[in-house]
């Protein structure tokens, strides 16, 4: 039902609502793919901005050379490769140490890229000429979001999914049970990064001009807010959080120009104090 509605939506909706849908779907994709890894393992990743940026920038570089949607796949690939490297180095860090390491990644990537672009190519950004039309972008983002949601729903039923939960509960114990924790962690981390990269790639044409500022740490924060607000332990939670936050901030922006952040902040505080398990807790009669 919902799926059908989302597919038909851009055909019947006016452009503004299609764009709003596009933005919210992109947020759903980010939040769900974040929770794919960080939900069960409880590793607080702040690398979303880095992977999103890597995907977007890659797309901007190859857009003129490859037919759509290959640039998006290229973005996903680069983000996943980056995640493999980072995962290998960083996934033995725990808790806050992992969070800060991943946060630094977006900044490191941004400044390295600026340094490279100014030093080697003599520019610092890319124009995205002849971008695909709005419907093509919408369906690309919809496809990415759908893939992320499907993966998130399917993964917990697999051996790897069970292992991930084991890692989140007690990593050392999981290891003694013979689970190859490192391989599973890195694998799922890269998978989630691929979705984030694809989201960045699909959204890149909306900017028209892209520079390394697209490696934006705020994207990391926003993703965490959406996922935690919805409840990171479930599949529906992060998606719900993204939709809720997207619709809420749109209303606040349109109705209360000078108080939009205030409204958003108060809403966050209220939700945290009243709903200990996030918005997803509302869906269940008896929260765990």
């Amino acid at each position, binding site marked *: 039902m919902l799926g059908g509605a989302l597919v038909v939506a851009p055909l019947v909706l006016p452009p503004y609502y299609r764009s709003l849908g596009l933005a919210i779907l992109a947020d759903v994709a980010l939040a769900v793919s974040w929770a794919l890894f960080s939900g069960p393992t409880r590793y607080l990743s702040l690398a979303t901005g880095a992977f999103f940026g890597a995907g977007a920038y890659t797309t901007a570089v190859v857009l003129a050379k490859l037919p759509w949607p290959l640039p998006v796949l290229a973005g996903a690939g680069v983000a996943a490769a980056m995640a493999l490297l980072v995962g290998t180095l960083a996934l033995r860090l725990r808790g806050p140490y992992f969070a800060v390491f991943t946060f630094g990644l977006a900044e*490191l990537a941004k400044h390295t890229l600026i340094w490279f672009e*100014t030093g080697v190519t003599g520019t610092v950004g890319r124009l995205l000429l002849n971008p695909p039309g709005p419907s093509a972008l919408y369906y690309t983002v919809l496809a990415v979001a759908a893939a992320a949601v499907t993966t998130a729903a399917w993964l917990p039923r697999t051996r790897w999914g069970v292992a991930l939960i084991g890692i989140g509960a007690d990593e050392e114990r999981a290891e003694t049970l013979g689970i190859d924790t490192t391989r599973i962690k890195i694998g799922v981390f890269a998978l989630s990064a691929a979705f984030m990269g694809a989201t960045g790639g699909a959204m890149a044409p909306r900017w028209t001009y892209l520079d390394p500022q697209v490696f934006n740490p705020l994207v990391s924060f926003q993703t965490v*807010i959406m996922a935690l607000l919805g409840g990171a332990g479930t599949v529906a939670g992060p998606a719900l959080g993204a939709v809720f936050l997207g619709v809420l901030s749109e209303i606040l922006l349109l109705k209360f120009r*000078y108080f939009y952040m205030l409204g958003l*902040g108060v809403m*966050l*505080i209220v939700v*945290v*104090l009243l709903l200990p398990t996030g918005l997803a807790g509302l869906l269940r009669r008896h929260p765990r």
Partner: protein
Amino acid sequence: MTVSPTLLTDVVVGGLTTGGIYALVALGLNLQYGLMRVLNVAHGEFLMLGAYLTYSLHTGWGVNPLLTLLITGPTAFAVGLALHRLLYARLLSGDATESLESRSLLLSFGLMFVIQNAALLIWSADLKGYSYLAIPLRWLGTVFPANRLLAAAIALALGAAFYVYLRASLTGKAVRALMQEPEGARLVGIRTARIHALCFGAGLAMSAITGSLVSMLFELTPFMGLPYTVTALVVVILGGLGNMMGCLLAGLLLGLVETAGVYLASSDIRLISSYAVLALILILKPSGLFGR
């Protein structure tokens, strides 16, 4: 490039002045994060508030910026106690310790939005700033601005004094006990909630005081807080969570690395070098430079 004594002085003094500021704001964050596992992303917003308060007191009523520390610090302390009472105590007292980190993180985000919006409404987005002691001091064949040296000296003195207080006083011992053995500390009768409230207040006070000092050096905007939160976070992690001496040293070290990067290579390298150093240290030593 040859390393002349003057250059060395420039790097060391420049690095320590930047690092002193980093150390104090990070110490404040470490009190909250290290003790309560509350990642307060609104930490830098209190720095911003301290800076604006000093600005308003100085330009509006002619109060000496240094004297305003006596106002911004205690005010932030009181606000910290209130926030702890109203918001964080509820989370900290609950049983769901595993969701504590994520819920307190969300709470801090909410706080961050509210404070930024409030500052925007009160002070507007226009750049604000003033000159105080922006005079060159000549020393060892080179020059340094008086206000930077003074701000860093005050920051370091406060940081060091606080460290001594933690080592020597009874409350300080309770704080350290809580950090190392929360369960044991509770058993020997340490009043957790009271210590938490005090640390929350003290953490915000340090942030606000840093803000007062920073206002003498840089222009103010309602959005200046978050970068300081991030720097503080990096310093806390470098120094080891809950390790106060490590935090002070890591702050100074980060200042030195950044300044050396700028002098020896270029300014672009500054941010690359600080994050690269962080990444390298964590890879080699996953619990921070001075972590156990």
